[in-house]
């Protein structure tokens, strides 16, 4: 007689054997003809230029973080909306508090200017010009 845990063990065993069997069968019957051309990066048949691992602008980081927070917020809102009638006023107030906290964070991000996209590039430190030149330049900019 099998106990419940023995069944789990049996399933684990069958799972491992199944995966290994599939991999070994694949190895036996698949065509395997790698070459340099096949391993190159696909660029519409052209010679690939540069590295495919491009760097993203660091500004995406804050936007992605804010998006993630509000995405999770919506995930929380759905089950709340489904059982809204049964939970009553308490759940409503609870959710309003939750939303307010997140809106506060949103207002903070907005006030800090993280949502502004067209920020100018930070100017490089001007170490070569003299103090006088620098003050003249500042006057011109003003």
């Amino acid at each position: 007689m099998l106990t419940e845990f023995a069944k789990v063990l049996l399933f684990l065993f069958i799972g491992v054997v199944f995966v290994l069997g599939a991999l070994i069968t694949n190895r036996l019957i698949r065509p395997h003809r790698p070459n340099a051309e096949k391993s190159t990066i696909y660029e519409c048949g052209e010679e690939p230029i540069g590295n495919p691992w491009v760097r993203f602008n660091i500004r995406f980081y804050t936007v992605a973080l804010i998006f993630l927070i509000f995405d999770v917020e919506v995930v929380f809102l759905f089950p709340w909306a489904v059982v809204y009638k049964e939970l009553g006023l308490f759940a409503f107030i609870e959710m309003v508090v939750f939303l307010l906290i997140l809106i506060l964070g949103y207002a903070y991000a907005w006030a800090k200017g993280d949502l502004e996209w067209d920020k100018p590039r930070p100017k490089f430190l001007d170490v070569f010009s003299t103090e006088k030149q620098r003050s003249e330049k500042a006057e011109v900019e003003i």
Partner: protein
Amino acid sequence: MGLLDKRFESENIVITTVEDVLNWARLSSLWMMQFGLACCAIEMMAASASHFDIMRFGIIPRSSPRQADLMIVAGTVTLKMASRVKRLYEQMPDPKYVISMGSCANCGGPYWEHGYHVLKGVDRVIPVDVYVPGCPPRPEAFLEGIIKLRQKIRRESIVKKKLPPVYVEEK
């Protein structure tokens, strides 16, 4: 009475060989590399539209050679394009098949003698499985090419060497 001999009532028990299953799977899902080179591509598009509908053979156009099994060289292969065609063919995973569609891809077509810029047959750079004649071939001829390719894949074997190319007869 043996272990399997006439023992089962169920219709869900199927006996086959590895080769038959593989060949069946390969010929029923020939995903094609989506690209056209010249006017033959128009006939290829007509063949993939609703009237001729090559999708009923499991031929789905894919935009990347990594997902494609079938390359349809539809049109004039210029010398400039030949290196690209070759590279795209190389980038497809095995097993891969090639249909050469139209006279230009078969042998250079109208440019066979004086076309300074045209490759005289795509089989000079990549191995071709099925040749479809015509200038351009009608979708029916193209469909026959696909059926010929399916028949060819059905005859394939894992261990034996590659089968020679087949030709669609001109009518």
